[in-house]
């Protein structure tokens, strides 16, 4: 069973449906026992970093996610959920994240050429840098759906794939049992479903 962490941000209908579509049982929950008994965890998220980080802490889910990740359970952060995995974010100030991955969240405006629209909204290609279990079914240049104004910088060895939006932007990260996608696999058609399927086959560390 997959536990999709419910901490009061965003719409999780499509995410849960996408797991159903690949024959996986997913629940949206903030129940510690269910999260503990889940085989893997998904951390979703849309909106502002500071607000999401606060909600995640306030409902005790930050601690739960950290514990489960430390225990080796596969964890997938999606969009803002991916950004929350990092040490900190410079989105409207400076805010602490979960610190599971090294790096910081910065505005894409700092690196992309002037004149490109912000947020990046739409389908863009994946450029694969390192092998990663959740990308086992993915080919260089496959398209996925992005909606974001910030990106993960200085990811070091955990940088797995980028996308080119006038500059290379972090698209996929991973370190051990912790994975993150800046794009929305649940909105990326068959390519996205293939990533979710591969995540469901990752063994705990």
């Amino acid at each position, binding site marked *: 069973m997959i536990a999709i962490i419910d901490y009061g941000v965003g719409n999780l209908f*499509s995410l849960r449906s996408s797991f159903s579509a690949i024959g996986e049982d997913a629940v949206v929950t903030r129940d510690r026992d269910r999260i503990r008994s889940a085989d893997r965890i998904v951390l979703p998220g849309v909106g502002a970093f500071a607000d999401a980080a606060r909600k995640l802490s306030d409902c005790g889910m930050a601690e739960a996610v950290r514990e489960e990740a430390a225990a080796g359970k596969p964890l997938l952060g999606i969009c803002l959920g991916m950004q929350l995995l990092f040490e900190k974010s410079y989105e409207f100030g400076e805010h602490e994240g979960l610190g599971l991955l090294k790096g910081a969240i910065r505005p894409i405006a700092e690196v992309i050429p002037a004149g490109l*629209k912000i947020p990046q909204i739409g389908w*863009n290609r994946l450029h694969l840098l390192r092998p990663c279990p959740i990308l086992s079914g993915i080919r260089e240049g496959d398209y996925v759906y992005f909606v974001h104004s910030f990106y993960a910088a200085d990811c070091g060895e955990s940088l797995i794939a980028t996308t080119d939006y006038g500059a290379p932007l972090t698209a996929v990260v991973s370190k051990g049992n912790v994975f993150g996608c800046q794009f929305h696999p649940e909105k990326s*058609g068959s390519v996205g479903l293939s990533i979710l399927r591969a995540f469901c086959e990752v063994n705990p560390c």
Partner: protein
Amino acid sequence: MITKRIIPCLDVRDGRVVKGTNFQGLRDVSSPVSLAEYYSSHGADELVFYDITASAEGRKLFTEILTETARRVFIPLTVGGGIGSLEDFDRVLKCGADKVSVNSGAIRNPSLVGEAAKRYGSQCVVLSADIKRVNGRFSVFAKGGREDTGMEAIGWIRRCVEEGAGEVVVNSIDTDGVKGGFDLPMLAAVCEAVSVPVIASGGAGTIGDFLTLFRTIPGVDAGLAASIFHFGEVEISELKREMAEAGIPVRTVRNA
């Protein structure tokens, strides 16, 4: 580079697609769910469901259809039609919509765009504007294009984007249904005025019209159409192949 999006729009009344279709191999041509699955598997980058239901029962049916579509189709889904309040946003977002398009609702209640953007994020709020030339200027129309609001369109769009609209659909009443091509001067004027994604609607008749659109106005992010897709006059896979050949960045779907 980010790709130009192709978006079919499905008008839904009482749970059925209003404009008929003539696809071979589609069992139920007026089922929004079947049609959405068909488009998704043939390369549509996004779908718009437009609710043109007047009755409460029809509205309930619409949300059921939406839910069923969101269970089966995994590309972005925008919902419009009859969105006049935050409760309406809530209703369709809970059923699996990713974005909500507001038109007359924003004209009646100008604070709606700002309030919705604050609650759900700008990425969720799409301003849809029906625009027609009146006495040499672009005028915003309400109620499905039947009523001239007297408001100047570019100023209206700019204001809504400042309030938090994350995308703008420009529907030219002047070119809509004519199939003579998109309204390039109107689109150029909107692209000049705002920095959020602009979606062109109204006027597409052929693949060539899309090529002209994206070549002439680089600021346009997406092309939206309804009947030409429904009637198979333009096949999305063929359209995308020709866009790619013309050097326009476009998502091609590989066979799994």
